């Protein structure tokens, strides 16, 4: 294919604005998929994605339109996956920016649009869902025009659901988005923008060829890591894997590497041919630093090796996941994992449990802290239980948060932001009724339930996005929890001093409710250093017997005790106390309680 007949584009949108439906319609219209084979959201291949109606992994599909080769790179829509969006965008020359005509611009519309603009992409705006009775295509077009500095007339009016205007979308892609550059005769170079693992064929790299041509069975090298392998198969997704002989400058496709070790090929690396290697790699990706951390432990400690393998596999598909081994006195062997955000954490957990059939316990999430000890040593702390006690200063990550909300809810958003130590930056009216609010907030104040709170206090109208904005010192302190005098490392937390007493008290109260009564009295304490700031006692049980047991009762009694024993195995032993797994999640739910009271 001549390079000037290729178009590489992504679809970017706020969640639920119809991105995946549009992708499906494009596949149908270009004949890549017959109507009979059409499944809703064909590109979202993970079970989890289809169930949640969101896209997590980017996908690249080749279709044909009026003599052109279009490579559609689907992108995630959630704030946690901005990183994946920016990776995908790097493989494109243009982006289709989709906005729900009934909703208008939302926070992730802005975030994604800015990413595309910063990446130098040509943006094709489209107002979707014009079939809805409450749709306001003109309003949406005006908002999009204002955002992009374009005439509202240039905004396409479409309905991905009914198919109206989708032809025009494809035409606009061909007309407005430039063909890829790159030198077809130069030594071959391709950017690995995503990868997956095939249990039979090893690592599959998704690549955008920038220069030269790659052929099947060509000896290759990953330039940054130095890993060498042969291209066992080269092909394109259309949308199933379809082998072809070669991929040339400007094209998007996949390379089956045969590599069995997932860590040997990183997303962001540059592939070149060993026959005629390029001089240097393409600009890669910046490593994203995870900002949210949580401990992941197998419920059954025998599953530790399975958990380790599963994380390794997942990491291949999810470059933003990081993990390191962690040992907790309370929870045994596990991993401290770094995530981009809460949804990311949730998705990793669900994938581990579903795809790898693991039963897991996840501690309350916390952010990364930078601590300076009295001796001047600087450490980055990912686990509250590792926060040094003799501290000079602690810095915590902040974010610039943007919230878009109908003007009636501005007060509610401000109230929430104030409760969470937010600093107001500014606000602007996007249209007569809708307001963009900008705040600076400590990330630690939003990782637990900020988004849930925001949604519930604005009746679901608010949209939210954030960008990391560096570290700042804070008056933070470490609160430890002791059960029967033993510190439960998995329950330690780092919190602003102003909230420490309240939170400590809430936590011990919650634990008193969550931990069943034991054979002995069990004190539950919250402490800052050696100072106890809250205490509750779980009174010992006074009786625990089955009154009657005669000849006819023995089987039932035995089964009852065996069931009880099984229940105990799911508990974690802290010293002599059995703590149910739910108790470790108690910290997670405190915030929502705090707001209810």
């Amino acid at each position, binding site marked *: 294919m001549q390079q000037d007949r290729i178009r590489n584009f992504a679809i970017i949108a706020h969640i639920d604005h119809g991105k995946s439906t549009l992708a499906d319609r494009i596949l149908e219209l270009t004949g890549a998929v017959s109507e009979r084979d059409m499944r809703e959201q064909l590109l979202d291949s993970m079970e989890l994605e289809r169930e949640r109606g969101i896209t997590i992994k980017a996908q690249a599909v080749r279709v044909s339109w009026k003599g052109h080769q279009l490579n559609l790179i689907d992108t995630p829509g959630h704030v946690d996956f901005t990183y994946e969006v920016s990776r995908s965008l790097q493989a494109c020359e243009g982006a289709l920016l989709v906005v729900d005509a009934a909703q208008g611009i939302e926070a992730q519309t802005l975030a994604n649009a800015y990413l595309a603009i910063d990446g130098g992409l040509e943006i094709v705006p489209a107002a979707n869902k014009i079939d809805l009775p409450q749709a306001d295509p003109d309003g949406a077009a005006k908002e999009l025009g204002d955002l992009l500095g374009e005439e509202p007339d240039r905004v396409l009016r479409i309905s991905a659901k009914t198919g109206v205007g989708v032809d025009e979308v494809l035409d606009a892609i061909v007309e407005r988005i430039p063909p890829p550059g790159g030198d077809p005769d130069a030594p071959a170079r391709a950017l690995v923008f995503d990868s997956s693992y095939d249990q039979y064929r090893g690592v599959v790299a998704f690549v955008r060829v920038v220069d030269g041509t790659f052929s099947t069975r060509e000896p290759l090298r990953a330039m940054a890591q130095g890993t060498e392998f042969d291209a066992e198969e080269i092909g394109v997704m259309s949308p199933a894997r379809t082998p072809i002989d070669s991929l040339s400058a400007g094209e998007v496709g996949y390379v089956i590497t045969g590599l069995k070790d997932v860590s040997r090929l990183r997303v962001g690396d540059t592939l070149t041919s060993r026959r005629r290697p390029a001089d240097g790699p393409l600009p890669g990706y910046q490593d994203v630093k995870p900002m949210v951390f949580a401990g992941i432990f197998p419920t059954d400690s025998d599953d530790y090796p399975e958990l380790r393998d599963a994380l390794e596999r997942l990491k291949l598909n999810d470059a933003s996941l990081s993990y390191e081994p962690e040992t907790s006195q309370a929870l045994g062997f596990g991993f401290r994992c770094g995530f981009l955000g809460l949804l990311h954490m949730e998705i990793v957990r669900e994938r581990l449990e579903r795809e790898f059939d693991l039963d897991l316990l996840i501690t309350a999430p916390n952010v990364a802290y930078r601590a300076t000890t009295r001796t001047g040593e600087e450490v980055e702390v990912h686990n509250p239980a590792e926060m040094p006690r003799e501290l000079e200063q602690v810095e915590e990550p902040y974010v610039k948060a943007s919230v878009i909300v109908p003007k009636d809810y501005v007060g509610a958003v401000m109230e929430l932001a104030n409760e969470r130590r937010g600093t107001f930056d500014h606000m602007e009216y996007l249209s007569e009724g809708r307001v963009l609010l900008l705040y600076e907030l400590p990330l630690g104040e939003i990782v637990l339930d900020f988004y849930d709170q925001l949604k519930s206090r604005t009746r679901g109208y608010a949209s939210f996005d954030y960008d990391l904005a560096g570290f700042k010192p804070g008056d933070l302190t470490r609160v430890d929890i002791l059960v029967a005098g033993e510190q439960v490392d998995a329950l330690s937390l780092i919190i602003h001093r102003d909230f420490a007493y309240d939170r400590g008290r809430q936590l011990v109260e919650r634990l008193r409710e969550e931990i069943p009564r034991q054979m002995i009295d069990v004190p539950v304490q919250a402490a800052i250093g050696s100072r106890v700031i809250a205490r509750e006692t779980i009174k010992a049980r006074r009786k*625990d*017997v089955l009154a009657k047991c005669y000849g006819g009762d023995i*089987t039932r009694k035995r089964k009852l005790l065996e069931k009880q024993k099984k229940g105990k195995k799911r508990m974690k032993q802290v010293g002599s106390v059995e703590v149910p797994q739910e108790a470790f999640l108690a910290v997670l739910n405190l915030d929502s309680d705090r707001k209810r009271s």
Partner: protein
Amino acid sequence: MSGVRHLYVHLPFCAHRCGYCDFVTVVGKGDQHAPYIDALLAELEREGAVLAPDLETVFLGGGTPTVTAPGELERLLRALPDAEEVTVEANPETVTPALAALLRANGVTRVSLGAQSFQPPLLGVLDRRATPEDVRQAVRTLRDTGFDNVSLDLVYGIPGQSGSDLEADLDEALALEPEHLSCYELEAKPGTRFAHAHGEELARQADAMEGYFEQVVDTVTAAGYRWYETANFCLEGARANGRDLRARHNLGYWLGRDYLGAGIGAVSTVGGVRRRNLPSLSRYIGALAHGEAPPREDEPIDAETAARERLLLGLRLDEPVVLADVAGAFDADALARLSDLGMLAVTANGHGDEIRLTWRGRFLGGGVTAELLA
């Protein structure tokens, strides 16, 4: 195989059904007494080969064995093999001098009376027919007839029962000087009429009633009784005239011995098989009348299961369990932990280590046993 020394016979008939009861019972059907006794005797004929020639115990439970037509009851008692201890369960209002004499004349050595409570309102809650005076009268009648081994059943944790109600019940029961006392916490079995009527009230009172078990044990042991099983007490020493007044039949269950059960709903455990007769009266009578085995189901009890049962039953007693007898059934780490917590005591003996629950541990026996099981 011959050698089972414990026989249980189930007599399901009752004058009416008490709301809290979850035993296999049959109300009315007076015309079925004779066919049922025929069926029982037929079942014993079929299954009795496993019995030892010298039985240790026979236990007639119910139902209310003493509402069985006297002629039929007598026919059964005469047909049953002799045993060292022959117990019959009775409701107080059924114990007439004539009945007591019938029992006495037919080899019964021990009577277990379902007193349950001495407070008329609480007896009402339980749907019991006997008045407190019926209980006292029944004990007098049994004594007059020459019975020197009488057991009373009490129930505590009745909806609306206060701590002083319980104290009064215990005092009344102890005043009758029974040789043996069984005290059960009321269990509102989910799905029963009783749970439906009183479940919520019981849940509300759960905290207040938590100390009732302690109150029962403290009061009864202070009166000179031996707390020999979780829910069972007996006179001992001088007051027992040197006799061992534990319920020997039930002790057989708790020591893991084999037993044969006859009648509807009756359970046997013989040679590694637990056999449960199904509860249908008509099918039971019908099958045996046709010379067939009654409808029943079998549950294999392998050696490992048997060891677990020996452990869980043995820990209900005040006598130690020999660890070597329950090898593989317990978790050694849990044993050490529970010992540290003061829940059980390990002692060395001539035949190896033995364990028993401590006084405190016996109140938490269920949880302790669950944890101790491997």
